[in-house]
């Protein structure tokens, strides 16, 4: 009987130790890797291409062109929202604002909010939104652009839902996800931008990702 207890105790100790190690794990690289076959020196070889955020070009709240190059050498958090969103966006903005404040002084971190309602959310409307929120570029870019391009990058690059839907509140269906993107344009984390504890985790992961570049 006693022995049994010791065994169980050891098991818990081991599990505890695993937990200890787990806090230092490297963030996963998310998305489907593509395997392509190509010919090198006459020999067919297979090559794996990791999932990366595609090239993009949008206009921000100051009418400046924002592309993937604008986030070169930065890790960034991306999300999809629209100004007249009655449901989850107010909470998303509130949570993203926490990230903004936390990393305000760190120029290696950027924020990128795409509107999914570009016909209403013009440059002027986004500028006004940023002003009312009290934030500015380049730390937090609010971008608008070609609607199809925005939906397309949302679905294929960031792997989130963003589309028009007349049955959804406000006329759009979209995910409240925050995506953590590294300097190699890879998705390293997905967080629910409407839940404070998930955003706490995001901020921890940002620090973890930042420190991985320092080594």
């Amino acid at each position, binding site marked *: 009987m006693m022995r049994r207890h010791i065994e169980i105790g050891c098991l818990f100790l081991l599990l505890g130790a695993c937990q200890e190690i787990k806090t230092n794990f490297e963030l996963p690289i998310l998305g489907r890797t593509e395997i392509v076959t190509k010919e090198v020196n006459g020999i067919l070889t297979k090559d794996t291409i990791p999932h990366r955020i595609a090239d993009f070009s949008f206009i921000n709240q100051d009418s400046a062109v924002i592309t993937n190059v604008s986030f070169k050498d930065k890790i960034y958090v991306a999300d999809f929202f629209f*100004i*007249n969103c*009655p449901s989850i966006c*107010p909470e998303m903005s*509130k949570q993203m604002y926490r990230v903004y404040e936390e990393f305000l002084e760190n120029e290696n971190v950027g924020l990128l909010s795409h509107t999914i309602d570009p016909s209403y959310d013009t440059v002027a409307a986004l500028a*006004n*939104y940023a*002003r*009312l*929120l009290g934030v500015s570029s380049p730390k937090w870019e609010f971008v608008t652009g070609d609607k199809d391009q925005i939906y397309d990058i949302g679905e294929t690059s960031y792997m989130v839902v963003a589309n028009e839907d007349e049955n959804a509140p406000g006329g759009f269906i979209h995910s409240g996800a925050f995506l953590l993107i590294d300097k190699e344009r890879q998705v390293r984390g997905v967080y629910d931008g409407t839940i404070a504890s998930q955003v706490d985790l995001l901020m921890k992961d940002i620090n973890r990702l930042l420190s991985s570049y320092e080594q």
Partner: protein
Amino acid sequence: MSNNRLFLFFFLFLVLSCNSYQKPAESHLPENLDEASKMKYTQYLIQGKILYNTYCTHCHQNSGEGFRELYPALIGSSTLMDSMSPAACLIKYGTKGSKKDSNLNINMPAQPELSNLEIAEILTYISNSWGNQSGFISVSKVATSLVDCATH
């Protein structure tokens, strides 16, 4: 066993029935009310809180504090306290139904499905909570307020 269960039910019933007459802790209830008005007032506060949590809390936040300049605070709000009419119109028709130039602010969405009673309950709750004290807002007051929303 069955006695215990009966007791439990009775206890639960007591707790629940007590709760239904308990005004929300953040709300103010005037003292010099007769029993009937006090009960009605309390019901409006309770129902108003439930509706507030469904329709308003996303933007104006749990304690009416608002968020940044995007979502105005309801605590001490002059739009709310000075006269109930614009507030009733805002809840029902949003900023698009208002004549006031709202280009500088983001739009408040309309909630046309809310009944006059529901609007009265929301108004009673928000104008008597978190330090606000504007008194009871009746259904008939809301009905009159909504007549000429376009002029606000």
